[in-house]
């Protein structure tokens, strides 16, 4: 691949220049500040863009600055043009008829390639065998101004492998960057300052966890007591039937239990007066719903509740009395006959023994007397038992009759409840009765607030809660007719028949204050976010697993390949040859460490890193690396070598050696030297190199190159 032409339009100090190059040796000659370095830089800038393009844009032509390279390989010509103002790159190739046709046009970004950038770099890779600026400069192109640092071990390693390996190395970097964005834990020991996505998630999850606990604690503090608010007691032994649905009966409650059943408002009334009336009203409405009573108390309801309560209490007392009487009656029976009989047998036995020792009627009389006493006692016992049983039977019958009457009254009560639109269960009746005073009090307060703030109340009217067990609705406009709901049963079946089990009756009906609702919503949000984060975390982990797997795969493959297939031995041999040629046999041996660092033998024969040697040796090694790599890696493209002032620090002997090596190189590839030295210019003229003369000023320097070549030839001849 030969660089045929460099075209510059308002590029740096050049206005409209076309610099032609030829195969073999080329010399761009000119004094200092004539633009030699600018030409060297232009080549890299056209191919890979300029980091600071503005430095090439002339101040008097700020709207235009472009340069183009024309490459030739066999019959193929490729023109790559870059506009440094717009950033547009146009690549054209000659077709069979010799006309240029665009093969790429776009605005590629070389530093962080997008789709266009990737396509362009792929094009460069196929054209020149290299697509990285640093490799191009430092290793293959010998651009001393841009790649002053020379070959880094990493670049060397990449170059020693084939182009595909270089490509995989670049991909490895991309994959590692992607991985590091997800997770900072990596096996290649790279540390990032930026927080990875997984760390972000872990931090956020930690925060959420703390938030959740604090919200949960706040909820716990704010929630009204649940199980103790209203407690009914079921008694299987004293089960009664209410209406036509079996249900647990509320037994008589102890004063403590009654107290526990009373509704305890969250806020005290005196505090409430200081609150916003709207808030207070909402709270009162909520409390109102808690009482289990309808908002509007029917006139008969208090009387019904009281009556019903009394009835239930009486019923419970009667039932308890009935139970006691029945138990008493069960125990009431005739005295056992076995004991008196035994007693009689004993008496007559004793009398018989007595009669055998004394022949008289005294034992007979004694036995008869004792027998009569025992029989009399037994008869008296039977009589008492009969009397007692009869009395108890009467009492039981009376109690049963009373209980029946009371139950009938309860049924009447139930009908009366239904008449006012209520069907409360026994437990609900107790709750309603206990909460009735508080309900009336709340209603009074509400009425007071409504009188004081009628407007606010209208605006903030809230929904009256409807308990699911007591829904009563009638829709006149219904297309399907009216319907009515009578909820009658809410007791779990399993709890029936198990006397003494306390069950929460109304634990779930307590309304929630606005603050609590906010807390609940916050908890819900935290849980949802946590769930989303967990899924995201697992996905990122799965993605990281694939990336780490890909990175390991590439790294292991390249590691294997580096030592087996990279032609390292060939490179070391080439490097040794070039160094030998450049130093005239002064340095014959060179080696690469495992880390691809170059080492030379020291004075005592020990291997030393190249950094330990003089600057002249270091420059020679850099040039040798460049030449060796160019020979190794640029087959068959054989990129031109551009060397800016290659002989600057060498003595006469070494200059001769270097020039000899370069001239040998030029037999197989294009070598372009940039120098201000007159001696080199004379040598170029003498040897017939292609010569490009630059001037310090003036409109054009290269337009009359041919003429200059001719003149220089004449001068050299003379």
């Amino acid at each position, binding site marked *: 691949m030969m660089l045929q032409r460099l075209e510059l339009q308002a590029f740096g100090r050049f206005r409209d220049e076309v610099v032609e190059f030829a195969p073999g040796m080329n010399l761009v000659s000119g004094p200092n500040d004539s633009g030699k370095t600018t030409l060297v830089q232009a080549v890299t800038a056209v191919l890979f863009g300029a980091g600071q393009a503005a430095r090439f844009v002339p101040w008097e032509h700020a709207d235009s600055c472009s340069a183009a390279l024309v490459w030739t390989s066999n019959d193929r010509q490729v023109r790559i043009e870059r506009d440094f103002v717009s950033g547009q790159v146009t690549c054209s190739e000659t077709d069979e008829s010799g006309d240029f046709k665009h093969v790429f046009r776009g605005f590629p970004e070389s530093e962080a390639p997008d789709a266009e950038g990737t396509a362009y770099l792929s094009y460069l890779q196929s054209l020149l065998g290299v697509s990285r600026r640093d490799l191009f400069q430092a290793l293959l192109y010998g651009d001393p101004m841009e790649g002053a640092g020379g070959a880094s071990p990493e670049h060397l390693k990449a170059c020693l492998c084939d182009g595909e390996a270089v490509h995989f190395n670049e991909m490895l970097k991309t994959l590692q960057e992607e991985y590091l964005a997800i997770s900072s834990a990596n096996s290649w020991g790279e540390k990032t300052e930026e927080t990875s996505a997984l760390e972000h998630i872990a931090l956020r999850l930690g925060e959420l966890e703390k938030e959740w606990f604090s919200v949960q604690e706040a909820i716990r503090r704010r929630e009204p007591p649940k199980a103790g608010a209203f407690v009914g007691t079921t008694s299987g032994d004293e089960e009664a039937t209410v209406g036509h649905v079996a249900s647990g009966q509320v037994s008589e409650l102890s004063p403590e239990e009654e107290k526990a059943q009373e509704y305890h408002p969250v806020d005290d009334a005196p505090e409430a007066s200081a609150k916003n009336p709207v808030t207070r009203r909402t709270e009162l409405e909520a409390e109102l719903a808690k009482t289990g009573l309808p908002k509007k108390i029917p006139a008969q309801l208090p009387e019904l509740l009281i009556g019903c309560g009394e009835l239930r209490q009486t019923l419970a007392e009667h039932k308890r009395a009935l139970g006691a009487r029945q138990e008493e009656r069960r125990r009431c029976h005739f005295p056992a006959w076995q004991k008196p009989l035994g007693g009689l047998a004993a008496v007559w036995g004793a009398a018989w023994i007595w009669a055998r020792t004394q022949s008289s009627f005294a034992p007979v009389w004694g036995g008869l007397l004792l027998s009569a006493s025992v029989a009399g006692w037994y008869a008296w016992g039977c009589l008492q038992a009969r009397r007692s049983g009869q009395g108890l039977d009467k009492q039981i019958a009376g109690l049963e009759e009373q209980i029946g009457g009371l139950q009938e009254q309860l049924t009447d009560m139930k009908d009366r409840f239904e008449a006012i639109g209520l069907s409360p269960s026994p437990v609900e009746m107790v709750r309603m009765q206990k909460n009735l005073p508080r309900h009336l009090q709340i209603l009074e307060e509400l009425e007071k607030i409504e009188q004081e703030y009628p407007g606010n109340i209208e605006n903030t009217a809230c929904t009256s*809660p409807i308990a699911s067990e007591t829904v009563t609705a009638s829709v006149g406009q*219904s297309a399907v007719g009216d*319907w009515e709901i009578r*909820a*009658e049963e809410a007791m779990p*079946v399993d709890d029936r028949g198990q006397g003494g089990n306390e069950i929460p009756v109304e634990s779930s*009906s*307590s309304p929630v204050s606005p603050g609590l609702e906010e807390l609940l919503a916050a908890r819900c949000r935290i849980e949802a976010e946590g769930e989303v984060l967990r899924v995201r975390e697992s996905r990122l982990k799965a993605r990281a697993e694939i990336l780490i797997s890909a990175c390991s*795969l590439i790294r292991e493959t390249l590691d294997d*390949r580096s030592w087996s297939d990279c032609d390292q031995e060939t490179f070391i041999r080439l490097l040794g040859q070039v160094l030998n040629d450049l130093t005239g046999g002064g340095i014959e041996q060179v080696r690469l460490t495992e880390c691809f660092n170059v080492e030379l033998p020291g004075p005592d024969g020990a291997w030393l890193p190249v950094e330990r040697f003089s600057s002249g040796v270091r420059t020679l090694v850099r040039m040798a690396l460049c030449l060796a790599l160019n020979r190794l890696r640029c087959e068959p493209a054989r990129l031109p070598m551009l060397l800016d002032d290659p002989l600057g620090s060498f003595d006469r002997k070494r200059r001769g050696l270097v020039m000899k090596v370069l001239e040998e190189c030029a037999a197989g590839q294009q070598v372009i030297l940039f120098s201000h030295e007159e001696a080199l210019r004379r040598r170029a003229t003498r040897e017939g190199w292609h010569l490009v003369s630059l001037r310090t000023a003036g409109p054009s320097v290269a337009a009359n190159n041919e003429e200059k070549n001719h003149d220089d030839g004449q001068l050299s001849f003379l």
Partner: protein
Amino acid sequence: MIRILQTSDLHLDAVFPELDGFAAARRADQMETFGRIVECAIRQKVHLLVVAGDLFASPWPSDDVVATVRNGFQRLCDHGILPVVLPGGSDTSRCADGIFDRQVFEGTLVLDPHGPECVILDIEGQSLHLCSSRSMDGRITWPSESSAESADIRLGVLCRPPSTAEEGMSGWLDDAPWREWAFDYLICGGLHHYRQWHIDGSLVACCSGTPEGLAFGENGERYCVVASVGAEAVTVEKVPVNTRILKDGDIEVQGFSSREELVDRIRRLGHPDIMMRLTLTGQPAVLIHAPLVQRQAADAFYRLEIDDRIQFMNSPLAEEYTQGTSVSGLLVSKARELASHRSEKERQVLDRALREVLVRCQAGVGGSL
């Protein structure tokens, strides 16, 4: 004859964590479906709308969702339809802070989520005994109810039938003391698919399934059910209500000679309302990187997910790679060598990693996809 529109397992306001940025769209779909159910109930002139469990995805749905549902129920009430909700396992809170404990649905009959309950409704002079229960440890307990007369209709609402109901449909009802329960019809929830149960040729129970598929597997058309329940017979009608269609599919990649061809084939399956999970299987003839294919074909679907189960490492294509001396070939050989010591799951990861590397290599410098 009592007409009932039954549905269940709407799971409104679900989080959909696996959908990430797409979750909000799915929640909107759910609300659209709920609106369609309400419209269906009004159009069909039913007496009741019964939600047999899991109306919401959690006991604390967002305010917006609650407001929409409340409005929907209010509309039903305005048309003389009674909404009946049996809270399910997802939206019942053990504490007194759940949505149904706050009593926000005015005019709605919320059945007891914690135990059996029986409510008697009078619908156009016909007594309807509505009993609810849920299966606990495979056991179903109904409230004992003695006042039903022969002319009354007994309707059961069961939140979660026993697990056997999911497997064999007829089994659990045969085992259950159906005659003892004496229901004319049983509305079931908790199963996410439509099911019917018959005894002696008569329809006795039905589960409508989720009206909007929640996850893949709940595919195709989704329904609510309009049931006409009389003392003598029950008839049901399925009404499609879903907003989106979930679909599963799989494609054998072996026959495709280029990635574009595969993308075209996938795109042909697409529809703006289809949410598809596509499994790619087989040994490819060309390099296929599933995320890239997904990206290229996604616009033909409402949402496309690709499950990558391609087996590249054992394919003839991988064999071809190993024939050469290129880095790619070494890479494939290395991967095959590593795979031989790994578990099936690790092999799958390695296969995906290998394909990604090779596709990136094809893509050009830097391997950006």
